């Protein structure tokens, strides 16, 4: 029976092989757990071997790499970015080649990945998660000939490193109007909001939704539950259930999956998705709308600048008129979802029209008088929040400090609600 040992060795070898096989595939895990394998794929079909594979560049084309925090199959944030990448390829045809790396952990790993992409000869690198901000800044210093765009942060330099984000709060405001009208018609006068993290971005979106809701339903209250994750399907659903149980007839989600819309369907009530335009597909009957990201046009715009040599470091914060923000049911060629009350449709269309014309922006939403959810005045009459206020910036070199920082909950949010510290 001595040959048993060789079996054992063989077995271990196969097991190790399996591990590497798994690493070579686009393996993934929820973005927030981190520490998982990153995988690579390039349009030039570089053979994947093991570990993080830096894709090949294509000669004679403008090569753009994307670094994603989650799997492209998340159906939400990263999925929407990947749709944008595909749009870029379609629009630019033979001039541009793209590649992406998914589930790249934030932090030291990210810096190595971004540096390797730059070294490999990519002409531009887009990094699409907040935690890539400092790594991107560091690598941008080292490779002045490569252009870098970081999504959802606030840092830049003067030459080759820009940050990119958009006024999703505009769409959340309109979403709030729709939800408020629905809740008023239902007689519940109560809307829910699934809030991922207590950070300025999420607070800004929830506040915009609440202010929008009060436009169409002054008696309505916005319940809010913090879940401390962007992606945990069960928790996202449970937060929605909790708010439906507390009397809401509409729940808006700020997290990645359309689970809350499904809960709405199960209860014959109403849900609102987020991130990606297909979030309503899970239950179109019970889904009022989706405020979604349409990154494609913005990518094309930036890559065209880069190819023309006109790209410089900047704080880019696009508005609705860029075409990069969408509200399902209200964009060109779309019909409002069946659950949207008739009465609110023209109101939404009117403001959306102004937004598309550049006449109504995030600053119009956040112009006083605005009270907080305890009834105290936060933004006095005639005062408009600044960009730094909206982003809650303080102590950032090159940016002014916020004075009315985004750390308050707007009028309409249930008075008991607090922002977790």
């Amino acid at each position, binding site marked *: 029976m001595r040959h048993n040992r060789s079996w054992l060795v*063989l077995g271990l070898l196969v097991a190790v092989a399996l591990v590497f096989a798994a690493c070579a595939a686009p393996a993934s895990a929820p973005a927030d757990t981190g520490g998982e394998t990153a995988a690579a794929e390039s349009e030039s079909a570089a053979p994947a071997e093991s570990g993080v594979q830096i894709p090949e560049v294509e000669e004679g084309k403008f090569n753009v790499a994307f670094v994603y925090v989650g799997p492209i*199959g998340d159906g939400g944030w990263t999925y929407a970015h990947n749709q944008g990448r595909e749009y870029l390829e379609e629009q630019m045809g033979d001039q541009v080649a793209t590649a992406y790396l998914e589930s790249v952990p934030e932090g030291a790993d990210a810096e190595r990945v971004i540096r390797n992409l730059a070294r490999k000869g990519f002409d531009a690198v887009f990094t699409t998660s907040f935690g890539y901000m400092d790594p991107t800044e560091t690598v941008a210093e080292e490779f002045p000939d490569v252009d870098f765009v970081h999504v959802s942060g606030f840092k830049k330099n003067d030459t080759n490193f820009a940050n990119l984000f958009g006024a999703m709060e505009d769409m959340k405001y309109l979403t709030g109007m729709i939800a408020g009208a629905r809740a008023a018609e239902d007689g519940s006068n109560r809307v829910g909001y699934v809030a991922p993290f207590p950070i300025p971005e999420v607070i800004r979106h929830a506040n915009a939704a609440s202010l929008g809701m009060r436009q169409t339903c002054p008696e309505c209250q916005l319940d809010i539950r913090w879940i401390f994750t962007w992606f945990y399907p069960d928790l996202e659903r449970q937060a929605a259930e909790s708010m439906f149980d507390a009397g809401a007839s509409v729940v808006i989600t700020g997290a990645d999956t359309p689970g809350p819309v499904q809960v709405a369907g199960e209860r014959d009530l109403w849900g609102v998705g987020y991130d990606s335009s297909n979030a309503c597909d899970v239950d179109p009957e019970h889904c009022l709308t989706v405020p979604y990201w349409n990154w494609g046009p913005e990518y094309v715009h930036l890559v065209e600048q880069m190819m023309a040599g006109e790209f410089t470091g900047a704080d880019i914060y696009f508005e609705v008129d860029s075409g990069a923000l969408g509200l399902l049911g209200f964009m060109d060629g779309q019909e409002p979802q069946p659950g949207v009350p008739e009465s609110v449709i023209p109101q939404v269309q009117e403001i959306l029209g102004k937004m598309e014309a550049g006449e109504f922006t995030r600053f119009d939403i956040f112009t006083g008088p605005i009270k907080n959810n305890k009834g105290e005045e936060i933004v006095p009459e005639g005062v408009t929040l600044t960009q730094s206020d909206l982003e809650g910036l303080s102590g950032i070199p090159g940016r002014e400090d916020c004075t009315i920082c985004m750390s308050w909950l707007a009028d309409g949010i249930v008075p008991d609600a607090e922002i977790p510290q």
Partner: protein
Amino acid sequence: MEVAMLVNLLAAGIRSGTPLLFATIGEIFAERSGVLNLGVEGMMLMGAMTAYGVSHATGNPWLGLLAGIIVGGFMALLHAFMTVTLRADQVVSGLALTFLGMGLSAVLGAPLVEVRNAPKLPAFPIPGLSQIPVVGPILFDHNIIVYIGFLLIPVAWFYIYRTRPGLNLRAVGEYPAAADTLGINVTRLRYYYVILGGMLAGLGGAALSLAITPLWIEGMTAGQGWIAVGLVIFAGWDPLRGAMGAYLFGAIRRLPLDMQNISFFLQHPTYGYFMNMLPYLFTIIVLVIGSREALRRRVGAPAALGVPYVREERGA
């Protein structure tokens, strides 16, 4: 009002604990036979992806459920071959299985991300019983998969503790050499129960993607396979306590969401971490308290857990 909140809490716990229940009981079977399988997360993901895909392709969620079970079984077969026949390290093989399942489900499931409404398993409020105040909404107003979970608990318990095959199962996990001398085929039984464990993990994954959070999203188990592995230990390899732990875990995940408007609690700097820790903490505490009894009766890990059985070799 408080009663209503408690009812909602418990109902939510039972609902969202169900996938965990299947995976936990499956792992109990595998470990009772002496084989540790850390591949639960991978098997659940493959089960979830396959079930959703088959349900979409055939239009029949029950076929999807079946496919999820079968795929879970096949994944486990791989583990059984590695660890029972080849006697490879169970930890390494199990981890490999998890990575394999995560990667494979992501690749094969990529087109399914676009599919947003494959047929789901039906909700089924039991007529009459679901109308009973308090008890009805907690126990009898659920998706049909939840009742399958209810049935599995006593069946698993009875099988393990009160039947002859169950005795053989425990013998193989405690003292395989003795079982072997009694004419029990250790290798075959370990194959059976590892595969059964994989089928139940696949069922747990299918329950997720067809009923509890009905969608396919990459990595949608979000670590529940690992929770199942942990629950098995804290449940002392007992299906009844495993079930309690699974449901409790589900309920405690919901509790901090319901309590969010109690503001002094929310203002604490560690609230978010605390909230996400609570289900783990509470489940461990309750099961530790529960296991004092088990300790007194000297019930613990199967003695041969993690040890490959080699006939005529000393040790075991």
